[in-house]
């Protein structure tokens, strides 16, 4: 069963977090270690980090077929900071991995306890879109 684990932790306009270099390094080392572990267990499908919300655009189709871009978002909007796609035996295993990611260290090495949204993904693109 494939699940996507989403870090929806960023807010509009945010850029690189203002953490100390050491804190950032500890955070990245934790994430790299988690990915390595998931790769070794054969559960990692993909993991990506996204650029910061201050670079996000919202696009709509204009009447003439030209895209209309907008970079203004409500303050309450959650931005995807990154995600993992894992292939696991049970939802409980997906929750356990999400819980580990949630506890990634933040400033001063304290666990962030960030909320991770967990969703099953379809086993492939819907057949009617292929």
């Amino acid at each position, binding site marked *: 069963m494939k699940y996507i684990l989403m870090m929806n932790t960023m807010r509009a306009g945010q850029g690189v977090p203002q953490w100390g270099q050491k804190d950032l390094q500890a955070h990245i080392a934790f994430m790299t270690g988690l990915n390595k572990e998931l790769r070794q267990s054969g559960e990692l499908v993909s993991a*990506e980090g996204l650029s910061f919300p201050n670079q996000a655009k919202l*696009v709509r189709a204009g009447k003439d077929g030209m895209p209309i871009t907008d970079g203004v978002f409500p303050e309450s909007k959650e931005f995807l900071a990154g995600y993992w796609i894992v292939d696991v035996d049970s939802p409980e295993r997906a929750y356990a991995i999400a819980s580990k990611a949630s506890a990634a260290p933040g400033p001063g090495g304290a666990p962030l306890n960030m909320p991770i949204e967990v*969703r099953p993904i379809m086993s492939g693109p819907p057949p009617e879109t292929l």
Partner: protein
Amino acid sequence: MKYILLMSGTKAGVDRYHAWSQRDIETHMAVLRGITNDLSGSGEFVATQGLAEPAEAKVVRGEKNGIPVTDGIFPESKEFLLGYWIVDVATPERAYAIAGRISAALGPGGTPTNMPIEVRRFAVYEQSKSQ
């Protein structure tokens, strides 16, 4: 440059989609299928994925004892990811153009949905993590 095009909607929006006629759904899917085909042809296609219903979503936090705490309660205003496309394109403008086409996919009665599509670049330092 890799970009992810995110299609999101609220639970209420998903409920409205379920009320579309079979024919409207088929027309909509045919447009999306055409876009995927074009992107495959141009070599810009990386991946596309639909997600299961928001009703199946959980939010997980780590607890001090290492046991995950799950919760399935979300504010009504929450936008859920419905699906995404990952494309590898030469310019941001090209990513916006593709998002514009997705946004123009036909909805009920053959009118474009004009759904907003969020366009985000992959962080370069993270790309080595992907397989």
